[in-house]
């Protein structure tokens, strides 16, 4: 029963990882030749690779920005939808709909909207403002990419948080309201601790997802302007499949692996501090 899963994980997870490390010490450009063992050359090259430095920064900003924005909007939406208003289902459907929409289609529509002479800036000009050059300005491109990604995925987190909110026992909330606690206090000291396991799960999933961002970057900015949105995944693709360096590309893959490993570890350690009622 377990065999397909184990075999699958061995072939498609473990083997590629082992191979990745082996490739990362090769000089290998499939058009020109190789693979040829090159020791630590690729790793030495990492140290002076300014684009790699740029993309580590870009990945960092993207992940932090995405998680912060996604989690807070998801929480706001979930709380709003938890107010037992009429028509909640309609709003829930609207907020959730981008989740089921094709990622590339969603990205293309936004790319079109965010052109310098596109729809968003048209909206701005209606109220007499000149919008920025969203995807071409180093100050705005990253924000644009993050926001587009947040709207795409926030619905899923919203649903998960909403489910957690609905599991919060009503008596508990009402009891503390009668005790004179403000709405905000109740939320902070009763609701938040109760939904914190879900918050943690959702944030982990969001962080992991944020590192996989590729299609969006490739379509919206191609990593530009000036590498400001060139996240690790995009840089790896550029090195491996555009410049055609499988050896060095694998080395960048190792960097990415280490980053993911580190992040998971940090979250694992932070979990005890964070989650109040882990069973």
């Amino acid at each position, binding site marked *: 029963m377990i065999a397909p899963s184990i075999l699958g994980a061995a072939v*498609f997870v*473990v*083997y590629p990882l082992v*191979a990745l490390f082996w490739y990362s010490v090769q000089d290998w450009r499939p058009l020109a030749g190789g693979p040829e063992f090159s020791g630590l050359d690729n790793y030495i090259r990492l140290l002076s690779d300014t684009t790699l430095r740029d993309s580590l920064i870009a990945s960092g900003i993207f992940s932090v920005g995405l998680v912060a924005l996604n989690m807070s909007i998801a929480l706001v939406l979930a709380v709003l939808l938890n107010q037992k208003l009429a028509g909640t289902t309609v709003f829930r459907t609207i907020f959730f709909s981008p989740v089921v929409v094709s990622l*590339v289609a969603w990205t293309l529509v936004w790319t079109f909207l965010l052109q310098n002479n596109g729809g968003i800036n048209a909206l701005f000009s209606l109220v007499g403002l000149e919008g920025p050059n969203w995807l071409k300005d180093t100050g705005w491109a990253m924000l644009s990419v993050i926001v587009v990604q947040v709207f795409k995925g926030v619905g899923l987190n919203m649903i998960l948080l909403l489910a*957690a909110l609905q599991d919060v026992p009503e008596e508990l909330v009402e009891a503390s309201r009668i005790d004179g606690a403000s709405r905000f206090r109740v939320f902070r000291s009763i609701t938040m601790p109760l939904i914190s396991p879900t918050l943690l799960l959702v944030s982990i999933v969001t962080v*992991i997802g944020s590192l996989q961002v590729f299609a969006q970057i490739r379509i919206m900015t191609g990593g530009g302007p000036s590498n400001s949105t060139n996240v690790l995944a995009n840089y*790896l693709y550029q090195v491996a499949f555009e410049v055609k360096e499988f050896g060095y590309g694998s080395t960048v893959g190792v960097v990415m692996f280490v980053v993911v490993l580190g992040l998971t570890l940090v979250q694992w350690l932070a979990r005890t501090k964070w989650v109040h009622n882990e069973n």
Partner: protein
Amino acid sequence: MKTSRTLTASKKWRGSVIALYSALILLTIPFLFPAWWMVSSSFKPLSQIMEYPPTLLPRDPTLDAYVAVFEQPFLLQYWNSLYIAVLVTLGTLAVSAMAGYAFARIRFPGVNALFLVVLLGLMLPAEVTIIPLFQLFTALDLNNTHWPLIIMPIFGASSVMGTFVMRQFFLGIPQELEDAGSMDGLNRFGIFRRIALPLARPSLAAVAILSFLASWNAFLEPLVFLSSRDKFTLPLALTQYTDSVGLPIWNVQQAAATLTVRPVLLVFVFMQRYFVQGLAQTGVKG
């Protein structure tokens, strides 16, 4: 005295209801405006698509863009995406239900270590191992076929996610239920099939939705593994509506996007209760 207090309270309540609704409506803009813009642009002639300031409605609506969509093998690409996603979903369900159950119920040496290996796949972005996988499928002579797009998720990332969700669910099923089954003479597999699996429907739905969407949205894998247009899946196909210098032909692109998005949205709107419940379940259990 008493009446007036309730009056102010209800006034306050009404005020906050209005505030809540305004907030909600305002928040729908970034979700609805793109959808509308996409459809509206797809009916614009090319000469109006980049007009500045753009018009919110097409002035002379035309179906030209939709005709242009089908100059590429769009239907075939649609079919490719659909059948791959369906196969991936079915395969993932089978693999992850079995593995999830086994990890939750069957004790054998090294089970924890094995589960860790499976989890490793959960956090690993696809990009990390794309080069070795590319080489693997090259050695198997399966490049530019749909096999990598089908096999990889079934045995790789999608199933790992599924296994995780299913294990969490099966851990929550009371053991007594199953003991009753074994007293009725069912073996392990029988218990799994007759008792555990039917209970797991909401979780199975969640796994199905997530793996379907992952396959439906995949971009890196088709980009790396496919090179012929008639093998493309939709995400890759959508990016191909470009002119002779590689710039997007916006109205055709938006038309293709509309055709890609609408049917799925329709299905979603009708089935959204199942979507939402299924997914919410995993969150609580996870």
